[in-house]
């Protein structure tokens, strides 16, 4: 007998679509409705053959052998105690319950606790600390915004249903004409599929967003005559045309993405974007929002700020207090400088998404545990791979959408092969650490896997122009 489960939330991108309808039968997923192509794939992946059903340990010949959860938990707990500065990184793809449990483990281990925002919207955090965050919820965008700007963000690809649910097409309370009543502006160096859905496309010269924001600010503040004829590849009259649209808007909203955070300037690009919002607010209503990538990447920011006072790059190795300083305590920089001596990759894939020149310093030198439902690149070089239940498919929990609205996720099938959830796993790691400490195991930085290997390719960093 098949069962239809409604209002299921999708565990992929920060849009957190919570209107999915999933049909299941005997613990298998038959059909997924309303999800985009990526969301659908997640649910089918969960039911596919070949999933990892038990923890595995890497053997000297490179093959993997199944081990029990107790053995895997013991290995991880010992590694965390012995290491002087372990790094626990990831968390984009798990629920807040798992993130909180990991926070307790990190505190006990004196670890550096970091999440994927570190390589994603981390610089947005820096700008927000400096400048503030005049934001709103996605509901307000849907119901009020009549001018929507996607800046350095390719929603059509990274958040496929974002435009239909919130940004471009939906009919809202004050926006009952849908996309016909909205002006959509995309700013990007490439003519993306998001640009194709827009009324106006500004092809900014790559890496020159700051200049363009500056020109917008000058117009908003009345220094029109001083704007050069071309700024960042955009003619002045085009800038003035867009500024007129913004000024005439009843409610302007800016979504910004990785185009700002990953290019030269990083946090400064976001900083000036927020300042532009401030200027526009002198004229009409304007808000701004970061296009957060993973479905719960806003979660650690909320959970850890509550636990430790900081959203990411949290160094707990001092034992007495938490310390945050991106550039010093951020995962990629720690890896670049070889400053950690154990690594847990959880709910992300540093193997695929760190620059390889950073990841190889971890993968070849330090003991490594990957906690993830599937075989990812980090798992293929980890000493231990521990599979866990997929949030939103096999276990529920709270996840924060990109606008920091908590969404209740739900399970639609039981965990494959009875595997643990992230929260259960971290709680058991913590208990095992406490047991081992009473047995006299202590931090000595010694661990059989922590031998540096020869023949590393050195990182060559050229001075920045």
């Amino acid at each position, binding site marked *: 007998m098949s069962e239809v489960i409604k209002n299921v939330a999708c565990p992929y991108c920060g849009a957190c679509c919570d209107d999915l309808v999933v049909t299941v039968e005997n613990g298998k997923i038959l059909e997924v409705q309303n999800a985009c192509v990526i969301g659908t794939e997640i649910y089918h992946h969960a039911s596919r053959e070949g999933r990892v059903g038990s923890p595995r340990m890497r053997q000297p010949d490179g093959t993997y052998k199944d081990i029990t959860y107790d053995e895997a938990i013991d290995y991880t707990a010992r590694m965390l105690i012995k290491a002087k500065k372990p790094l626990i990184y990831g968390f984009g793809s798990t629920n807040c319950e798992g993130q909180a449990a990991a926070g307790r483990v990190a505190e006990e281990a004196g670890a550096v606790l970091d999440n994927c925002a570190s390589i994603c919207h981390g610089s947005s955090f820096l700008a927000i600390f400096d400048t503030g965050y005049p934001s709103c919820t996605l509901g307000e965008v849907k119901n009020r915004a009549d001018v929507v700007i996607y800046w350095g963000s390719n929603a059509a690809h990274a958040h496929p249903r974002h435009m239909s649910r919130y940004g471009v097409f939906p009919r809202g309370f004050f926006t009952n004409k849908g996309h016909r009543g909205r002006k959509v502006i995309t700013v990007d160096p490439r003519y993306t599929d998001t*640009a194709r859905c827009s009324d106006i496309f500004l092809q900014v010269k*790559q890496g020159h967003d700051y200049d363009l924001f500056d020109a917008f600010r000058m117009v908003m503040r009345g220094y029109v005559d001083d704007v050069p004829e071309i700024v960042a590849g955009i003619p002045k009259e085009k800038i003035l045309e867009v500024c007129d649209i913004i000024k005439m808007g009843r409610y302007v909203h800016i979504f910004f993405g990785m185009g700002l955070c990953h290019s030269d300037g990083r946090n400064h690009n976001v900083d000036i974007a927020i300042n532009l919002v401030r200027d526009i607010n002198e004229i009409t209503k304007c808000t701004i929002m970061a296009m957060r990538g993973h479905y719960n990447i806003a979660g650690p920011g909320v959970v850890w700020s509550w636990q430790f006072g900081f959203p990411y790059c949290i160094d707990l190795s001092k034992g007495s207090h938490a310390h945050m300083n991106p550039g010093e305590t951020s995962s*990629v920089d720690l890896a670049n400088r070889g400053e950690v001596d154990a690594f847990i990759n959880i709910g992300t894939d540093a193997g695929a998404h*760190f*620059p*390889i020149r950073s990841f190889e310093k971890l993968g070849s030198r330090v003991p490594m545990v990957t906690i993830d439902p599937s075989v990812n690149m980090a798992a293929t*070089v980890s000493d231990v791979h521990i599979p866990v239940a997929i949030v939103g498919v096999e276990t529920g929990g709270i996840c924060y959408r990109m606008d920091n609205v908590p969404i209740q996720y739900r399970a639609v099938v039981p965990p494959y092969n009875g595997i643990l959830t992230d929260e259960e796993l971290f709680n058991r790691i913590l208990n095992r650490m406490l047991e081992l400490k009473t047995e006299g195991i202590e931090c000595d930085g010694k661990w059989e896997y922590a031998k540096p290997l020869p*023949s590393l390719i050195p990182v060559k960093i*050229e001075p920045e122009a």
Partner: protein
Amino acid sequence: MNALHLNMVTQRAVEEGEAMEAGKTTQKYFDVCTVIEMNADDIKAMEIPPNAIVKVTSECGEVIVKAIIARQTCPRGLCHMRQSVWANQVVPPRTQSTGEPQYSGFPVTVEPALDARIVPAVELVQKACNKWNGKLLWPM
């Protein structure tokens, strides 16, 4: 055949997202991510046909991929790789002290390498980490 100096951005693509969820060891992930998207005129300037194999070199590494005409148009001088194991072979790890590597806006050289082999993801990562034992344990 010529080499070109281009500005590279590496970002998400829906094809990559879908393939990633199917699995990073799958043929699908390999097929959609082992490409560099370029302007048609840039490909012409290299005097290679679209879909030819090229070598992409940056300040910190190199990778072999296929040069395709960009699905989402790139202006001349700009190229795009879908964020993936292959793109990250050439992404510079420098972070401007923010924790974020230079995923977008770094110089690369693209040159034809018609007979080169596109290396599977697992092999690339395991080799970089000194953990490659000569065979793929996860058949694609």
